[in-house]
């Protein structure tokens, strides 16, 4: 599996018999969340999963009652209630000794912003939930306003000239909860992604996955380059791919080349960075600072092995 195929059209024997995201859904072309759900189909196979989705694009993905584009029992919740509703569903599964994996699928708004308190509390209680944040770095559902996940220099409908603040460090926040597992996921690195999804599906306790999810509509990018954008974000060091076990054991999974080429390509392929004219010089110190910290946390002085082979 190289590039994840969209909308269940490339269904194989390895996948869940009914794709989590059904064909005919209304997601925009090139939507990173669609890719993620395809990957989830393969990782989850035919295990018993239930999905909780707070208000976000993914809630719209399910479509209009009574049909649904998600082939799994699903509940759509209020914006801040993803992790609390998932707590209830997971608790009842536990009380009944069921093997159900409860997945909370939330956007960056429902994770970094309005749902932060709920999420933090569920993580602190170590509820048996797999929480996946697909991060398109805006409020996509409401037309593309800034969130605290929006990166420096990106224009949104509420930061017309480009956002001046730095993106919130969600992985750091989640790791600080000392949950069993937290990992960032690259949709451009399917093997690593599948390994992490499978692992996260099977661990008990609170698991957090952070997915950079390209959004052509909000990023003003070509749908066809979505996966390439993720690859560039990873290569440039802008989106570090690593995992954290129990909040203290850090492993860097993919070593970037930190090239200017990758960074400049990433910025220039999206019109959202054009207005602010944000430069490599402005972004580089943030990347370096983050990686400095990450290396310290992972206990590595030397760069990690490139493109570590998973499984």
């Amino acid at each position, binding site marked *: 599996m190289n590039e994840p195929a969209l909308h269940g059209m490339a269904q194989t024997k390895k996948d869940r018999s*009914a794709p989590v995201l059904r064909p005919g859904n209304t997601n925009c072309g090139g939507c990173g969340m669609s890719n993620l759900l395809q990957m989830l189909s393969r990782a989850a196979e035919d295990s018993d999963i239930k999905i909780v989705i707070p208000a976000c694009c993914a809630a719209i993905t399910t479509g209009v009652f009574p049909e649904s584009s998600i082939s799994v029992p699903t509940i*759509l919740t*209020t914006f801040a209630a993803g992790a*609390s509703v998932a707590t*209830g*569903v997971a608790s*009842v599964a536990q009380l*009944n000794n069921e093997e159900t994996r409860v997945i909370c699928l939330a956007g960056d708004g429902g994770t970094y912003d309005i749902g932060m308190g709920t999420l933090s509390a569920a993580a602190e209680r170590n509820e048996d939930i797999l929480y996946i944040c697909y991060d398109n770095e805006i409020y996509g559902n409401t037309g593309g306003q800034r969130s605290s996940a929006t990166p420096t220099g990106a224009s949104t409908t509420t930061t017309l000239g480009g956002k001046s603040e730095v993106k919130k460090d969600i992985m750091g926040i989640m790791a600080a909860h000392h949950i069993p597992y937290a990992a960032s996921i690259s949709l451009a690195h399917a093997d690593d992604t599948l390994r992490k999804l499978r692992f996260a599906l099977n661990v008990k306790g609170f698991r957090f996955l952070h997915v950079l999810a390209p959004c052509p509509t909000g990023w003003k990018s070509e749908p066809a380059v979505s996966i390439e954008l993720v690859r560039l974000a990873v290569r440039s060091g802008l989106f570090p791919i690593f995992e954290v076990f129990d909040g203290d054991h850090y492993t860097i999974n993919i070593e970037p080349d930190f090239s200017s080429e990758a960074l400049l390509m990433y910025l220039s392929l999206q019109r959202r960075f054009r207005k602010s004219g944000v430069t490599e010089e402005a972004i580089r110190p943030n990347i370096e600072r983050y990686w400095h910290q990450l290396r310290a946390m992972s206990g590595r002085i030397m760069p990690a092995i490139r493109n570590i082979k998973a499984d």
Partner: protein
Amino acid sequence: MSVELISANHAAALGATLAGRANRTARGFCSGVYPITPTTECMEYLCGQEIEKGKVVRVDSEHSAMGVCIGASSAGARSFTATSSNGLAYMLENCVAAASYRLPIVMAVSNRTLGPPWNIWADHGDSLLLRDLGWLQFYCADNQEVFDTVLCAFKLAEDPRVLMPAISCMDGFILSHTMAQVEIPGQKLVDRFLPTTKVPHRLNKSAHTLGQLEIPQQAVAHRTQHHQAMLAAVQVYAEIQDSFEEIFGRRVADPVVAYHADDADTLIVSMGTIGTTAERVVDQLREQGQRVGSIRVRMFRPMPENDLRKYFAGTKRIAVLDRNISLGYGGVLWGEIRGFSDPDAIVQGYMVGVAGGDVRREHIINLLTDLQQCKTESAPKIVEVA
């Protein structure tokens, strides 16, 4: 059956505990709870109970408390929470959701004034926030009623003809913190009274999605179903009263509790504990030969309109006592029931005991004196009680 001296907060929690245990042979019990005065002792008590196949999640907010209840109920478990005042306001968004999902969650509310300015005393303005959301609502007047109502609320909320959440209210402090004797049935009897919880649309094997987008026609269809189920709850409650009596050997209070109302020319209408004070006023004035009666609206949603019309027929003067203010309008109860009286009756609204004022007999007697002097109905009056 045992008799225990407990507060109404504990009575509610005990009712929830017994109901929770009664679902051990099905999908269990799961509840999200968060403290707020004057309901804190209810959730604390629940946290101290051993409930087989039960879990009480100590969450981070009331929003999350209702979130957990929604998750638990949508997974088929029995679910309960308790809150007051700003806790209810903070929870409100999820209360909307719980009702529209048609989940049979039960909540105890110790009524308290909304703030700031902070005020911890009784006012019905908090639970009335839920008035139009599709929650069944009960207002209780003593500890036994609080206990009984929690049990009945589960049975009513979970009835397949009803299937929606319910609140059982008690005036903050006046009831929530008052100790009184409460008859507590044994678990076996509660098991008989409360069949196990069945949420037909729970997240199970089929790939359906709860809470999806709807187009207006679908939304209207769902609202219509919800509205009709709410109206049907009056009849279902009557059946529950019979079953309660058969199993527990005593009758749970009516939707409308009438006291010397049949031959009364003047009626005092109220909700919650003011109704008990009104009954003592009726005793006092009856001794003086006055034909006064009391009507306590115990079931507020659905509104037991037929019962009220029956009691109001032929009554010429009605004082409606509201422990709440709908600012810019008047008392909520007054606004809702004034249309049920004879056209020539004077239905005078009094907002009394608002924000925790202690309503005593003399206050009600003064209001009745005012009512007797009315030539016509006037705008609702705010009455200060010292």
